[in-house]
């Protein structure tokens, strides 16, 4: 008989370690439908017909966070055969709170009293037998890390599943609440499944929106239920949901007081570490040092070395060159070689080129998460980032984004609050990534004679764009809808487990590669096609010169759009389009299109800051202001295809993807326009229609920046319209 076991528990209760220990290498990672919350499934070791579903780590089954809603929907609707509830024995009180809610659901439960080794070491004594009797479910002592108790745990779980018995747990609430619950149960018993009756009664009592939405009751019954709740609320002088939460904790406190003997040990090692690592004076320097280390290793030194190696040596010399030779030797047509070697392999190579650096970054990310430091980063940085609608944890994506936007965007997954995560995904690529550096160097050398301020100004531009966008977007309905409370656990420090770190690193790496290939390859082929084909003397075919290519025609027709930004030439337009394939291509395109005539030569000139040699590129721009405006647009607009595709996979929602990329392009356009028009005007230009538009846009921008945030009740009112009209619904 096939058995489905659901794994439920608090974050930091050792659930991931437990899941890995139980399923080994038979895991499949996917998404829960429509959201970017990992759904992990695996087969229990040695049992072919036992499936284990890893639910997200949660503290409660309230209807307010995505993870909680996913978990409870799964438990109530999909009805696994048995639930293994992982309880951190060293933090038993808060962990049992979720347990009481899980027991209410009515599915058989086995409690894995985890981290029992830590409990024993600290001298705490837990009366397992009494605990098991009180909660009327088996309690098995385990240590997922050491691998103890797992056999007994799974045996018990399968036994319960096969017996098919319902849970018999019934905790006693206070008299008024119990009365209300039994009255509600009487009213709804024909509308809900029998085994979940207790759970539904409690949810109706709590006025749980998600449940009210799903179960249709007549208005008469609804009115009766409301009467029952109101009477109880009056008697106990609190709202119903708070009554349930309070009484649950009172119940647990009693249980813990009776069956857990705490040894009064003073400060733990974790406390001592924390008193230094997040202290008033050392907290920020230590944070800066850790971030520097992560950045230095993964972006500056090891990371850039392995990226260059995979791009130039591995893909370029070991794959592309021999492949081209071989294709030539068997007499393949030239255009076909171009398509295969430059278009397809080059496109795939770019993804593979990202991979080593991404793995290094994901390695550090996993260590930060597993050790418990990630929560401290949120604690340290929250004050700065929440002002601009981001989370303290947004620091990491933004920092990584200065190396490469792709892992930067993926790092946003560590942010729990949906709004903060979306905002981070949208703004991460404003930071100048490694591939944008040649472009910055080009403008700096060719137009500004290599002055010192261009490069740092690009970083300030990026930070400014993040801050301005954060403030503007935070005040829009899209991001105001639900406030994201910052009430987070600071888990005890742990030495990261090698197995968890490595697994998480490869999971993230492979999820990118899997999803990236198709879209990215297609996009590379399109760009390659546009650059390599065109009309010569009326016939369509392969062209040697970009001047005759399809891209040239497209550039010409789009150039007008960029005229208000000061660079309405087809060369600059084509360069911007090619920048979508990879940002460093912009320099190469200029090399090809100007009298320099060669991509590599242009790159070399930029490297050696050869101002004179680059003058043909400088000649493309009418003024320094126009050139800088070009830089602004290219730094802020849509990132490369790889990053855009990562935005898509991380948003896991087409509308949000389009909104994010559209916003980036519009924002880049507006800022470049304001800069160019006002820059020209204030440096002695005449007042034109463009100047007027720039002033208007500036006024709009300033208004959106400084307008007071709309009041909460206005937003709630317009929320329903929004999801209908803008279609940004979950």
């Amino acid at each position, binding site marked *: 008989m096939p058995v489905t076991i659901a794994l439920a528990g608090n974050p930091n209760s050792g659930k991931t370690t437990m899941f890995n220990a139980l399923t080994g290498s038979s895991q499949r990672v996917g998404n829960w439908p429509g959201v970017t919350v990992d759904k992990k499934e695996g087969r229990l070791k040695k049992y072919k017909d036992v499936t284990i579903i890893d639910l997200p780590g949660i*503290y*409660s089954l*309230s209807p*307010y966070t995505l993870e909680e809603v996913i978990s409870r929907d799964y438990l109530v609707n999909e009805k696994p055969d048995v639930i293994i509830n992982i309880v951190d024995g060293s*933090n*038993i*009180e*808060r962990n049992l*709170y979720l347990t009481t809610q899980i027991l209410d659901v009515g599915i058989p439960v086995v409690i894995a009293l985890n981290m029992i080794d830590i409990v024993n070491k600290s001298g705490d004594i837990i009366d397992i037998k009494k605990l098991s009797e009180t909660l009327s479910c088996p309690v098995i002592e385990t240590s997922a890390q050491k691998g103890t108790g797992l056999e007994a745990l799974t045996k018990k779980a399968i036994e319960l599943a096969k017996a098919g018995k319902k849970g018999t747990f019934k905790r006693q609430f206070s008299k008024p609440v119990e009365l209300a619950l039994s009255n509600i149960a009487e009213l709804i018993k024909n509308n809900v499944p029998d085994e979940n009756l207790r759970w539904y009664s409690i949810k109706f009592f709590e006025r749980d929106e998600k449940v009210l939405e799903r179960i249709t009751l007549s208005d008469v019954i609804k009115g009766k239920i409301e009467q029952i709740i109101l009477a109880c609320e009056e008697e106990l002088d609190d*709202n119903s*949901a*708070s009554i349930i*939460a*309070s009484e649950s*904790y*009172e119940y647990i406190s009693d249980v813990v007081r009776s069956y857990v003997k*705490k040894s009064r040990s003073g400060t733990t090692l974790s406390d001592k570490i*924390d*008193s230094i690592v*997040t*202290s*008033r*004076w050392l*907290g*920020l320097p230590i944070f800066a040092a850790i971030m520097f280390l992560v950045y230095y290793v993964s972006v500056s030194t090891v990371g850039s070395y392995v990226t260059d190696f995979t791009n130039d040596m591995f893909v370029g010399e070991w794959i592309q060159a021999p492949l081209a030779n071989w294709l030539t030797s068997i007499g393949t047509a030239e255009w076909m070689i171009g398509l295969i070697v430059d278009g397809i392999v080059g496109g795939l190579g770019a993804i593979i080129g990202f991979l080593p650096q991404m793995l290094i970054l994901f390695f550090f990310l996993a260590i930060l998460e597993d050790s418990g430091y990630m*929560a401290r980063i*949120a*604690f*340290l*940085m*929250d*004050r*700065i980032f*929440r002002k601009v609608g981001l989370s303290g944890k947004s620091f990491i994506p933004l920092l990584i984004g200065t190396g490469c936007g792709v892992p930067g965007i993926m790092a946003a997954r560590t942010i729990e609050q949906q709004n903060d995560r979306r905002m981070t995904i949208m703004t991460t690529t404003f930071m100048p990534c490694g591939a944008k550096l040649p472009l910055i160097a080009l403008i700096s050398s060719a137009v500004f004679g290599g002055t010192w301020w261009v490069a740092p100004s690009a970083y300030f531009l990026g930070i400014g764009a993040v801050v301005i966008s954060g403030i503007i977007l935070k005040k829009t309905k899209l991001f105001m809808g*639900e*406030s994201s*409370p*910052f*009430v*987070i*656990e*600071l*888990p*005890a420090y742990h030495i990261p487990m090698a197995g968890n770190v490595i697994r998480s690193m490869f999971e993230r790496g492979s999820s990118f590669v899997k999803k990236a290939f198709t879209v990215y390859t297609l996009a590379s082929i399109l760009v390659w096609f546009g650059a390599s084909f065109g009309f010569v003397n009326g016939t369509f075919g392969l062209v040697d010169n970009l001047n005759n290519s399809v891209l040239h025609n497209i550039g010409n027709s789009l150039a007008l759009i960029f005229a208000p930004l000061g660079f309405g030439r087809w060369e600059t337009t084509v360069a911007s389009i090619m920048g979508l394939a990879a940002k460093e291509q912009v320099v190469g395109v200029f090399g090809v299109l100007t009298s320099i005539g060669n991509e590599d030569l242009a790159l070399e000139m930029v490297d050696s800051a050869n101002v004179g040699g680059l003058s043909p590129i400088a000649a493309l721009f009418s003024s320094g202001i126009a050139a800088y405006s070009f830089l602004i647009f290219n730094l802020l607009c849509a990132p490369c295809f790889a990053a855009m595709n990562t935005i898509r996979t991380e948003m896991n929602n087409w509308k949000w993807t389009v909104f994010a990329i559209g916003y980036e392009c519009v924002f880049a356009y507006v800022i470049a326009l304001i800069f160019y028009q006002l820059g020209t005007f204030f440096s002695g230009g005449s007042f034109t229609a463009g100047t007027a538009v720039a002033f208007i846009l500036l006024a709009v921008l300033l208004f959106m920046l400084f307008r007071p945030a709309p009041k909460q009740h206005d937003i709630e009112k317009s929320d329903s319209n929004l999801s209908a009209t803008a279609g940004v619904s979950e």
Partner: protein
Amino acid sequence: MASLREVPCGQTVTVIKICGEGALKRRIMDMGITKGVEIFVRKVAPLGDPVEVKVRGYELSLRKTDAEMIEVK
């Protein structure tokens, strides 16, 4: 009677009431801050916000504006 926000570091207080409603209140209570529980205020973040408290045997961090909703004595 005061809010948790005004409690200096190093003091232990008892929760009387949690004001407000909705997701934030529920989250605060889900994390174990309910009527009658003891809270030890451990420290303030280096930038002055949020605060770190010990409640029900574990460390919890919350913003000062949210701490204002918690009445203590």
